[in-house]
């Protein structure tokens, strides 16, 4: 195992108990994150992208449970199995969250307390996790507000969340998240609720902060544009599984998985002159009864019989690029057959 990784997730599964039965939201996913890296997790609704992050942070809803897997964060095993009791696990996670690990949510108002001033809310993680005095925490809060670009912090620190606009609230959330210089920042669709011009401001801010402080960031989004502009490495999730992983250029310029290719062809690149959008037919799978094989099989143009019954193994296309698709096995067989044929031909000639 590479010890330089900040976060290492292996074989993580998450299930939810619902009225209709067990929903397998995340099934057996593995990935890692290096210090200072911005990782994008792309997927549609129900792909398990947010749930897997909530599982890592220990923030699953009451009916959710981690089905198995190992999570190592900063050299520290934080999977549920590593703790003797639920209480010990939650206690440890409370200690890590807001301290070494922080999260930015899609809707700032679900996270901000409408009855407390911004000062209370920014200083809270400082007072909880460090030995700072109130005065020091106040100074640090002002500093953070400047850092995330909130104008006239001395005045605004005493205001309440409703007195800020959506973009400003998101900045406050980022300030709270950054309070204790976290090693890992998880951003769950932080710009989805914002307008394009405000989104550009927030993305710029996240990029700057990551570069300056060396924080690793996981960016959960459905917007391929956002990952392309921000992320170093990308995971593509579908139906609770990771379909493809690679660097930004590998994913965008040489996608391997049919789902990734489908996604890229159905987003519209306005720079290119008039081209028809090629949508992916059908709709996402029912996670109550996840398919035995590849979750994408019913929408895939290249689906084969094997896809229906067995999940493909991960094929490593380069050090950083991997994909789970049976098409790679087909290609391998073709290559083998070709070499064999060439050998035969050579043999025949000789």
């Amino acid at each position: 195992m590479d010890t330089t990784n900040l976060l290492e997730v292996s074989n993580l599964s998450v299930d939810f108990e619902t009225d209709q039965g067990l929903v397998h939201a995340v099934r057996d996913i593995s990935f890692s994150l290096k210090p200072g890296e911005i990782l994008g997790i792309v997927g549609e609704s129900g792909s398990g992208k947010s749930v897997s992050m909530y599982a890592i942070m220990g923030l699953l809803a009451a009916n959710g449970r981690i089905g198995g897997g190992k999570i190592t964060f900063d050299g520290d095993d934080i999977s549920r199995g590593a703790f003797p009791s639920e209480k010990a696990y939650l206690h440890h996670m409370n200690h890590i969250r807001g301290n070494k690990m922080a999260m930015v949510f899609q809707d700032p108002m679900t996270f901000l307390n409408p009855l407390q001033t911004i000062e209370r809310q920014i200083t809270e993680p400082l007072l909880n996790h460090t030995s700072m005095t109130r005065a020091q925490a106040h100074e640090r809060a002002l500093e953070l507000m400047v850092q995330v670009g909130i104008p006239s912090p001395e005045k605004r620190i005493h205001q309440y969340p409703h007195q800020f606009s959506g973009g400003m609230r998101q900045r406050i959330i980022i300030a709270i998240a950054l309070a204790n210089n976290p090693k890992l920042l998880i951003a769950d669709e932080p710009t989805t609720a914002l307008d394009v011009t405000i989104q550009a401001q927030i993305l710029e801010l996240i990029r700057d902060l990551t570069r300056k402080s060396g924080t690793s960031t996981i960016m959960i989004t459905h917007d391929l544009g956002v990952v392309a502009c921000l992320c170093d490495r990308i995971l593509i999730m579908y139906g609770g599984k990771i379909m493809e992983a690679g660097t930004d250029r590998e994913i965008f310029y040489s996608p391997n998985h049919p789902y990734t290719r489908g996604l890229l062809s159905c987003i519209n690149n306005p720079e290119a002159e008039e081209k028809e959008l090629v949508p992916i037919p059908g709709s996402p799978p029912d996670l109550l009864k996840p398919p035995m094989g590849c979750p994408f099989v019913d929408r895939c143009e290249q689906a084969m019989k094997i896809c229906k019954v067995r999940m493909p193994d991960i094929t490593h296309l380069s050090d950083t690029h991997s994909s789970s698709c049976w098409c790679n096995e087909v290609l391998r067989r073709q290559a083998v057959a070709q070499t064999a044929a060439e050998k035969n031909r050579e043999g025949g000639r000789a």
Partner: protein
Amino acid sequence: MNGGHYVEISHLDVIYDVTKGVFSPKQLVHAVNDVSFTIEAGETFGLVGESGCGKSSLGRAIVGINKPRSGDIRINGQDVTHLHGRSLHDFRREVQMIFQDPYASLNPRMTIGEILSEPMVIHGLHRSPGAREERVTELLRTVGLKPDHVRRYPHEFSGGQRQRISIARTLAVNPRFIICDEPISALDVSIQAQIINLLKQIQKERNIAYLFIAHDIGMVKHISDRIGVMYLGHLVEVGDSSEVYFHPLHPYTKALLSAIPISDPDVGKSRKRIILEGEIPSPLNPPAGCPFSTRCPLADEACRRMPKMQQFGSHQVACHHVNQSV
């Protein structure tokens, strides 16, 4: 028709009274401010802008959900702002609307069959039950759904499928003009393309005009023939879609375009952005003169006056500094 345009909107104002309580001072939001544009039959006119810019209010004013304060809306030569009775009922068959949220736009207590036959009941079309059933089947096929779903309830369908049902419902009355109010923004990426292609195909077959309202200027450019850009209730730029996209003239259009995250890492990461300072002003208290002047990098004394819409090549732009670069 008198040789004019199919849809002609002139000097439209929509004002909301948001006064709280009986005795508080009057508070008015000027949601749509002196907006004029035209749409031809069978054409798609895209309307873009950020939240609160008035684009949805404008769409809702056309179908009569909001009453405009002043101005004219002419569709097919007929002034539709003062319709009632029989002529209003007939107007409903001409103009329809597709809504943003596929989860909220279908009545959860009605089956798909009931939802699709409701327009026929209201307008007395296809009077026999058999004919209605046949028409429902035909509508479902048009939007790519299986006809055996008629007895199901909306919650059994995914977002994209519900949006198809919404589209089928509007088609039930054979409209010639459909207002699409952010029809794809609540959908997943892979589904958005399905809906866009469906809308395009329907337009081709039936020669329907669209007013396509969205905040995603990329998608709007893809589907529209012409684009209008709105900011704080004002229309700031109108032109052919690729003209506006590739050669924007208004500084706000330029900033909006440069803010789009392009899904191409090499272009996206290296591109120089115009990052606008600050936030959109509150519509309760708009700036005097040009609405964009508080955030505009070019703003100066001249911008205290409201700029007029002027023709520049194939664009119409409302700006005092069209020829300066940002």
